[in-house]
């Protein structure tokens, strides 16, 4: 029988009470590496950690570079240029095929070694493509890739094959040449294959990790990958705890644990940072930067990301049918004033819908329409505009400083004689609803890989959202989109890209770029860490301490 005196009982009870009061991390073992807590506005949109389901900026933050890795990665510490990751080298076999050599000795979180079999499985029907077919499949002969019946509980959510197929519209198969060599075989010539291999959504997972999961949801909340940190626990809408993967091929991770916590309110994130509860507070609005940095112990890092803020036009709205009105709107905007006033000057006005990391596809002598109120006013007059209202559907700060930006824009447009009226909406389906009041709205575009196909073609081309919802179309632009997607002639592609920007941004505006988006992270100055020019947060050995 348990002999429990009053004194010993009180001692045990006290100790138990003490453990309840202690922070959890204090109970961790004697690993000398620090653990950190990162306060974010949201951990993921879908409450999963599947790169094919969670396609978002917030997802990028928790995935890269901590959890998921692809064959070709990005240099997060520099200009996001492609770098070898799980593949050490790659070469073109022909204009439809890329061969990659895998890095040897890479260990998954379950201790298995990465082999070509895992890569093939990561691009299989069972894990990614489901029953979807490549667009030009009939052009090549295919054998042995029948559609498997998924085992109970492991059925893919329907959006996963849709996302996978959009990322890889014409991929026929990935084949294992030997244990450490794989080939990506496309149905049609595609110069963007390497870019697609490097893009968000093309990361590699453990086949055994998938096969041993009880359900898709179990797997998607604890995927077995090769990243420097592995999932300990994901509490939906609350927290995500990662732990060092000490067999990581790139060296022992510098942190013992990383805990992402969802703190939806900005003041709460800042208060938690100042009180030491969190070591990092993400998603800091620009107007709070000076406030935080007034405390000399803290700093706000971050800056531009691969995402541009746009104003999008519905050319079928009666007031916008005449391109002169849309063109006037693009010339009426003083973009730099918006950047200075609402972004504390900590972002930039880019050269149209393109990014430096496009490399030799970047059109360096291109620019957004010049701020020229007189020209804009002349265009308004020339168009015979009589002051009819132009609705501007607006969400309440879905984007950083969205409402103040809209108010500034409305005033700038008013200065050139345009009567733009804000209509507040609650969500995206109200913004996109087809009705006579759809004219102007906000949007942002990313570039998931370093080629115009990833942005202007995917967002504004024939299969992009803007044309799919019926806001805009242009025959010549659609022909140019096809050239960009299928041509292998660099000069022809670059010419097509330039012409497509001329149409979409100048002649028959589909959109106008306002500024590059930016993200800001606050932290104590004492922590030696550098923010990436992206939502991704890098906690590998080279970026800590």
């Amino acid at each position, binding site marked *: 029988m348990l002999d429990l005196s009053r004194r010993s009982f009180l001692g045990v009870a006290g100790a138990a009470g003490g453990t*309840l*009061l202690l922070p959890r991390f204090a109970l961790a073992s004697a690993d000398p590496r620090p653990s950190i807590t990162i306060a974010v506005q949201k951990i993921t949109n879908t409450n999963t950690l599947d790169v094919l389901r969670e*396609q978002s900026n917030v997802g990028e933050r928790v995935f890269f570079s901590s959890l998921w890795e692809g064959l070709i990665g990005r240099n997060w510490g520099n200009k996001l240029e492609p770098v070898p990751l799980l593949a050490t080298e790659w070469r073109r076999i022909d204009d439809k095929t890329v061969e990659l050599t895998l890095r040897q000795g890479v260990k998954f979180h379950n201790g298995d070694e990465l082999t070509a079999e895992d890569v093939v499985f990561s691009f299989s029907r069972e894990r990614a493509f489901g029953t979807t077919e490549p667009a030009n499949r009939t052009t090549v002969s295919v054998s042995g890739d029948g559609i498997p019946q998924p085992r109970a509980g492991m059925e893919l959510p329907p959006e996963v094959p849709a996302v996978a197929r*959009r990322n890889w519209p014409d991929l026929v198969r990935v084949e294992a040449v030997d244990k450490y060599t794989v080939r990506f075989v496309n149905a049609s010539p595609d110069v963007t294959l390497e870019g697609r291999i490097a893009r968000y959504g093309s990361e590699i997972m453990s086949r055994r990790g998938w096969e041993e999961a009880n359900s898709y949801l179990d797997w998607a909340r604890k995927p077995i990958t090769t990243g420097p940190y592995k999932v300990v626990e994901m509490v939906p809408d609350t927290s995500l705890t990662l732990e060092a993967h000490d067999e990581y091929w790139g060296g022992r991770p510098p942190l013992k644990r990383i805990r992402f916590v*969802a703190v939806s309110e900005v003041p709460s994130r800042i*208060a938690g940072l100042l009180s030491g509860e969190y070591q990092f507070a993400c998603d800091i609005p620009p107007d709070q930067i000076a406030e935080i940095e007034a405390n000399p112990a803290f700093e706000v890092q971050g800056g531009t990301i691969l995402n541009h803020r746009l104003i999008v036009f519905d050319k079928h709205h009666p007031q916008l049918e005449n391109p002169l009105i849309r063109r006037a709107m693009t010339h009426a905007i003083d973009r730099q004033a918006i950047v200075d006033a609402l972004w504390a000057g900590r972002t930039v006005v880019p050269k149209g819908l393109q990014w430096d990391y496009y490399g030799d596809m970047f059109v360096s002598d291109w620019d957004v329409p010049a701020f020229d109120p007189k020209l804009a006013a002349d265009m308004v007059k020339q168009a015979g505009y009589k002051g009819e209202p132009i609705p501007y559907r607006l969400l309440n700060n879905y984007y950083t400083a969205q409402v103040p930006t809209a108010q500034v824009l409305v005033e700038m447009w008013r200065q050139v004689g345009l009567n733009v009226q804000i209509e507040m909406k609650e*969500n995206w*389906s109200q913004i*996109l609803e087809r009705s006579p009041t759809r004219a102007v709205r906000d949007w942002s575009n990313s570039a998931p890989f370093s080629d115009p196909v990833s942005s202007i073609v995917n967002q504004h081309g024939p299969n992009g959202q803007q044309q799919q919802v019926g806001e805009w179309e242009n025959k010549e632009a659609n022909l140019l989109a096809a050239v960009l997607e299928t041509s292998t002639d660099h000069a022809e592609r670059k010419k097509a890209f330039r012409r497509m920007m001329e149409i979409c941004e100048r002649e028959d505006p589909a959109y106008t770029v306002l500024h590059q988006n930016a993200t800001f992270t606050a932290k104590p100055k004492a922590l030696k860490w550098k923010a990436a020019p992206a939502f991704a947060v890098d906690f590998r050995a080279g970026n800590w301490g």
Partner: protein
Amino acid sequence: MLRFLSLRLGRAALTIVLVVTFAFVVLRLSGDPAMLIMGAEASPEAIAAFRASWGLDEPIWVQYFAYFGALAQGDLGMSMRDGRPALDMVLDRVPATLALTVPALLIKIGLGIPAGIYAALHRDSAIDRAVMVLAIAGFTVPSFVLSLLLVLLFAVKLGWLPSGGNQTLLHAVLPVLTLGIGGAAILARFTRSAMLEVLNQPYVRTASAKGVPWRRVVVGHVLPNAMIPTVTIIGFMVGNLIAGAVVVESVFSWPGIGRMLVTAVANRDLAVVQTILLLVAATMVAANLIVDLLYGVLDPRLRQAPAARGGH
């Protein structure tokens, strides 16, 4: 009694059906869950696939009858965002919310009622005025502001308490205080008013005039009669145990029902929203029923039939 109970339950069932119908129509007409869950950057193919898989491409009346058909069989549906049964998800969060709202209710009652009684018994004294100033401040300062003030003081300036999260018992202190202070202020004001009203009744003056000790007058005559409106307010507070911490849970990142409701509404995750509404409605109905029964305990006249009380 049986008739009383059946009437109450019938009315409650009708209320729940109306609430659920209203929520269904409003949520479905004001946003597309596919786009909200998948995000603005999702591809049109992914959005279409999501819609088809959840039946969102069906006419709204088909979706409505499908939902009620399942509900009639006890199936509250699956979360479109999580792919889990909505009931399981909601029940998982109930303990976290109760961990805030139950202690907060005890603070409200333990602080608010004595403060109201004391203020009424010392009407127009300095203490009465102080209690009322504090009560009005506690009542009028929004919980969002109060919680941030508490965080600034106890977490940022003094460093005594954590600013958010739910890892330890200490994490519950500030949210419980925020909820408790506001509720205590309300109870103090109601208790004081009710006490003052009873104190002015002729039977209190009669009892005093007859030489009954003041303490006995207060305990035996004033308090029971003054408690009826107070019990009504407490009933509302009990009914709010499940959904009464929406703002506080958001500010303190507390993973309870309130925060889940905000997220589910924002994502139009209908099954989750409806399950929470059903749970809240059931709690409210139960609380109101208990309050009705307590009236009878506090005032024996209410236990009698209307005819026996001379009613018509």
